[in-house]
């Protein structure tokens, strides 16, 4: 059967909402029309690290159009959360509204709810917070040094502690040190990536609408993690999830940038307190400065390589900048571990994937969480290995590419291997001439070619 005969595989699939995208009729969360809607604006920390001495909301409360002002004292349930607590990730280390300390510049401190966005913004600017500024740390390697400022009490050494008291998510396979001693070449380097803002065209936001009588609240949200948002909101508000109805829909771009679960809990609380619909929409500035970005990564790779191109050992130490709080970083760090050492069969592998805390904006998912920085580091390293031993980089990859049934460093056999065929197809498209024995290589048979 040819692909052209298949109904689904290999056939283009039309987007469900493409027809209404082109007419402008697709309904995004803020296209919902609700009468008597209030608007929430956040007063945010102006320091990356400071003790909160006093929060004075009196002037904000008496400002024109203000209906409600919320601080950490108004939180009815939990004061701290982690978006993945519902699936067993923790601890819950992030303040919903800051108390005692702020740990990054832009952290939520006081929510102001008013009749119009402008009134809410003007009043939020009138909140007065007295701070005692503390030393801050912005670099992962600085954060791990003795005597560095401690970002949160949960992590006395500024790094996450994985289950079983490990400093890192780890892979241990074979004996890298022994293999390094036997290798013809040692190739090492350090690869770093910067934080990247996902920058969806539609910023983070939601509208919470009280449904009257029984205290039920409907939340229209553009979150990418509707179930997580529902769980976290119920937890923070101390209400059963049956009291909340979360409605998602078409999201105006996410790319991982809408899993912070930040707007929903506080907006829902505001709707509960005021009895009126409340909207909280990030400004573009908030989206860029406050919403989580992709994290900064530092990947250190040391390879032991033979003259014939075989990589016999790979040792990787990775540092991920989580910013001030955990969010989903431990998940990203483990996923990174699962992605390394790349699509290559290497008999000796050692990986440490470390999540580091700094006083930067908390980071989170973005397209290929933990994977993009890993692939970047790995493939630049592969080119460097090829250059070092004087081998064609395509040939080096074909020699090391995993084959069906190979044992991976994660102690799983390779299934459905297609790396060799993918490289050969790419070479053809790129007009790359490979020697005949390489063209005959196969994922199904290491001896082929």
């Amino acid at each position, binding site marked *: 059967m040819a692909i052209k005969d298949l109904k689904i595989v290999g056939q*283009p699939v*039309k*987007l469900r*909402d*493409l*027809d*209404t*995208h*082109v*007419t*402008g*009729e*697709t*309904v*995004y969360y*803020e*296209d919902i*029309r609700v009468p008597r809607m209030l608007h929430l604006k956040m007063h945010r920390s102006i320091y990356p690290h400071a003790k909160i001495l006093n929060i004075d909301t009196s002037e904000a409360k008496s400002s024109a159009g203000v209906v409600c002002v919320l601080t950490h004292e108004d939180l009815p349930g939990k004061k701290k959360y982690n978006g993945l607590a519902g699936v067993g990730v923790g601890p819950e280390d992030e303040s919903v509204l800051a108390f005692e300390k702020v740990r990054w510049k832009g952290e939520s401190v006081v929510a102001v709810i008013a009749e119009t966005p402008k009134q809410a913004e003007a009043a939020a600017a009138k909140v007065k917070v007295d701070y005692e500024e503390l030393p801050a740390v912005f670099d992962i390697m600085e954060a791990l040094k003795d005597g560095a400022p401690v970002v949160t009490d949960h992590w006395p050494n500024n790094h996450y502690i994985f289950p079983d008291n490990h400093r890192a998510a780890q892979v241990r396979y074979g004996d890298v040190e022994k293999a390094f001693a036997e290798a013809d070449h040692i190739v090492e380097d350090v690869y770093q990536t910067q934080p990247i803002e996902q*920058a*969806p*065209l*539609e*910023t983070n936001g939601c509208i919470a609408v009280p449904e009257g009588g029984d205290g039920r609240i409907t939340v229209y949200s553009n979150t990418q993690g509707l179930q997580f948002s529902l769980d976290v909101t119920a937890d923070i508000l101390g209400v059963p999830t049956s009291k909340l109805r979360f409605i998602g829909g*078409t*999201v*105006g*771009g*996410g*790319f991982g940038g809408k899993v912070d679960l930040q707007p929903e809990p506080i907006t829902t609380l505001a709707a509960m307190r005021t009895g009126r619909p409340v909207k909280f929409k990030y*400004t*573009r500035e908030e989206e860029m400065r406050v919403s989580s970005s992709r994290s900064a990564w530092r990947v250190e790779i040391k390879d032991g390589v033979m003259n014939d191109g075989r990589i016999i050992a790979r040792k990787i130490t990775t540092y991920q900048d989580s910013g001030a709080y955990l969010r989903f970083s431990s998940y990203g760090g483990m996923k990174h571990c699962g992605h390394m050492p790349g699509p290559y069969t290497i008999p000796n592998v050692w990986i440490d994937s470390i999540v580091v805390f700094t006083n930067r904006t908390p980071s989170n998912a973005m397209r290929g969480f933990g994977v993009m920085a890993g692939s970047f580091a790995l493939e630049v390293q592969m080119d460097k290995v090829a250059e070092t031993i004087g081998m064609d980089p395509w040939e080096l990859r074909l020699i090391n590419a995993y084959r069906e049934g190979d044992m991976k460093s994660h102690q799983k056999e390779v299934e459905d291997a297609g790396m060799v065929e993918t490289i050969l197809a790419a070479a053809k498209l790129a007009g790359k001439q490979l020697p005949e024995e390489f063209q005959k290589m196969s994922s199904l048979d290491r001896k082929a070619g």
Partner: protein
Amino acid sequence: MASRIVSLKVNGQNEEFIVGALTSLQDILRDTLNYTSVKEGCRQGGCGSCSVIIDGELRLSCLTPVQEVDGSEVTTLEGLNQSNSIAALQQQFIDKYAAQCGFCTPGMMVAIQALLDRNPNPSRDEITEGLAGNICRCTGYLPIIKAVEGVVAEMSGASGD
């Protein structure tokens, strides 16, 4: 500065409002008239998602104080839908997969219509320039450019690819 009465013809309808000095056209279109195709991606003139046509010219409604365009004719995507003038372009967008999340699409539609109104046979460079004020974060732009080229080819009688 004082509020005053402003008259506009929006998508063929005569409208009248009392507006403050700096009330943006975007707020009137979205919140007062419920033309929700006018998207709000930045409110600072950076993304093009709020693009509208004012008296035949492409403008950003977020940076346009309503008082400054008193007496003007304003067209949003809803207006273009009414006249059915962009059906071919919409079909090209569907055929070329020129939208993913769709948030930039209404602004793109309006910007392309404005481009084709002043230049019915734009080159690829002219298309790129015509869309320079509209950000898309999903498609990588190429399908959008191909959709425009498709509609240009149709209009000039040649068959699109």
